[in-house]
């Protein structure tokens, strides 16, 4: 088998990513603006109004404590929803066939869609960070941890969105997971509170939630404080990336949801 040459592969990947970025950039009013507005409301209501009565969390002002979690919440939901909606609509309109008839390997199709999801996740993450500056001073403990965790978390949820898109057969299927799985797990992932406040039993249950590790690692990157081990967090994030990537690749290689 003579695969596409390296530069041809690079052109193909760049084409998919550019197409995906243009897709969400063209409709920025629907994709980038709403999370900025929503997060501004979170900052005002939870951070400002309620947070002022809570005082400190883990020795940090409550408003400052929730900033990393809310940025992460925006990154996770946007990385996921970008890929799931883009992949499903390409199936729905059948233009996924443009890729399927071309010599682009399935691994590049995955990377392309994930690249688009990560781009949107990071764009929204930066936008929400800018909004947060109106409420909380910017703080950075470790640039490496912050960037690596936010990018890898975005990859995890972009991959998960792709898998959801592969299985989805109608528009309901692309909203079930974000509504009933992703949002509850994120809210219970230590965005608004420290798990150390929970009773032992619920602390143990919370540790089964992978989002808890991602939020805490990101909070460590920005504020230098975390409930959990950074090494365990990295191991879990990398484990999810590998597992989800291999699963997505197997699905596309078998043609699940895309080939008859």
């Amino acid at each position, binding site marked *: *088998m*003579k*695969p*596409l*040459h390296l*530069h*041809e*592969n690079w*052109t*193909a990947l*760049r*084409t*998919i990513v550019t*197409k995906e970025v*243009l*897709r969400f950039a*063209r409709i920025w009013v629907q994709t980038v603006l709403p999370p900025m507005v929503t997060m501004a409301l979170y900052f005002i209501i939870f951070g400002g109004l309620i947070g002022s009565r809570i005082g400190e969390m883990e020795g940090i002002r409550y408003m400052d404590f929730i900033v990393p979690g809310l940025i992460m919440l925006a990154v996770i939901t946007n990385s996921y929803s970008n890929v799931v909606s883009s992949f499903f609509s*390409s199936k729905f*309109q*059948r*233009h996924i*066939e*443009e*890729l*399927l*008839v*071309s*010599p*682009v*390997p399935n691994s590049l199709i995955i990377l392309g869609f994930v690249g688009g999801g990560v781009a949107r996740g990071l764009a929204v993450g930066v936008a929400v960070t800018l909004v947060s500056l109106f409420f909380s001073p910017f703080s950075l403990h470790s640039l490496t941890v912050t960037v690596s965790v936010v990018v890898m978390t975005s990859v995890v949820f972009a991959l998960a969105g792709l898998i959801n898109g592969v299985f989805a057969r109608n528009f309901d299927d692309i909203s079930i997971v974000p509504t009933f799985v992703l949002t509850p797990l994120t809210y219970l992932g230590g965005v608004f509170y420290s798990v150390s406040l929970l009773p032992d039993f619920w602390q143990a249950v919370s540790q089964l939630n992978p989002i808890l590790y991602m939020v805490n690692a990101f909070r460590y990157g920005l504020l230098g404080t975390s409930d959990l081990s950074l090494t365990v967090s990295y191991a879990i994030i990398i484990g999810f990336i590998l597992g989800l990537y291999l699963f997505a690749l197997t699905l596309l290689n078998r*043609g699940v949801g895309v*080939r*008859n």
Partner: protein
Amino acid sequence: MSNAALEIRALRKSYRNGFEALKGIDLTVAEGSFFALLGPNGAGKSTTIGIVTSLISKTSGKVQVFGHDLDREVQEVKRNIGLVPQEFNFNNFEPVAEVVVNQAGYYGIPRREAWKRARHYLGELGLWDKRQDMARTLSGGMKRRLMIARALVHEPRLLILDEPTAGVDIELRRSMWEFLQDINCDGRSIILTTHYLEEAERLCRNIAIIDHGHIVANTTMRGLLAKLDTETVVLELRAAAQRLPDHDSIRLRRIDELTLEADINRGEDLNTLFQLLDGAGIHVQSMRNKTNRLEELFVRMTRAVESADRGIRSAP
């Protein structure tokens, strides 16, 4: 390694519900040919095309495109094929030029070269002025032409068109025929499925008819048409005929008071028909072929398969 543009051997496709769409077909499309693949709805045409273009997985059999095996060299196979599918399958929310340029990108063609080719093919197909319009705003005929430009942008050696002129007005259809004939003359092999048998007869030098998952004919257009042993013409009369004359190789029958049908054996010329009618005092006002010649054969062949299938199904 075969020189054929497409070689299919013992190709089978069974769906999970047990439906057998292809029952072991063999098909060879010579390089450079303009090939018609005809068949009634559900005969297996689109399944065959879907397998060749990797959109449908085969159950068994071999497919080779310019000698490249679909199982072992799928990327080479894909690189050599351009597909114009039956249904619109581009992103409606992308500008026209981007649909074509992105497709080139999937084949590893750098953006500058992709724009050059997009300009060429969109220009040839009369769409360059629409390049910035969203694809959804195009008319049906323009959308079909956009899919042709998209299929050609990576300059494949084999172009497969699945019903390319469905819903296209006659003027536009003729200009598309000319375009396709031109690119075939340049050496590109073309496989065409169509419901317009006039289109197949006019464009294609070779033909296969598929029905109920079997290939029932695979020959040259001339060879196939030579099988037609009778041709039927419809005659509109000036006045009602009193009696119908007899002839060994021409059979006349009355359709209504002023209309006759004549079955003329192959080899018999029309002068004999007119002499016969003249002798009987029958004056003809106008004459037309009852059906297109290919249509006549197509109906006969597909009916024969249907009858054979019914026989098999009704057997104990």
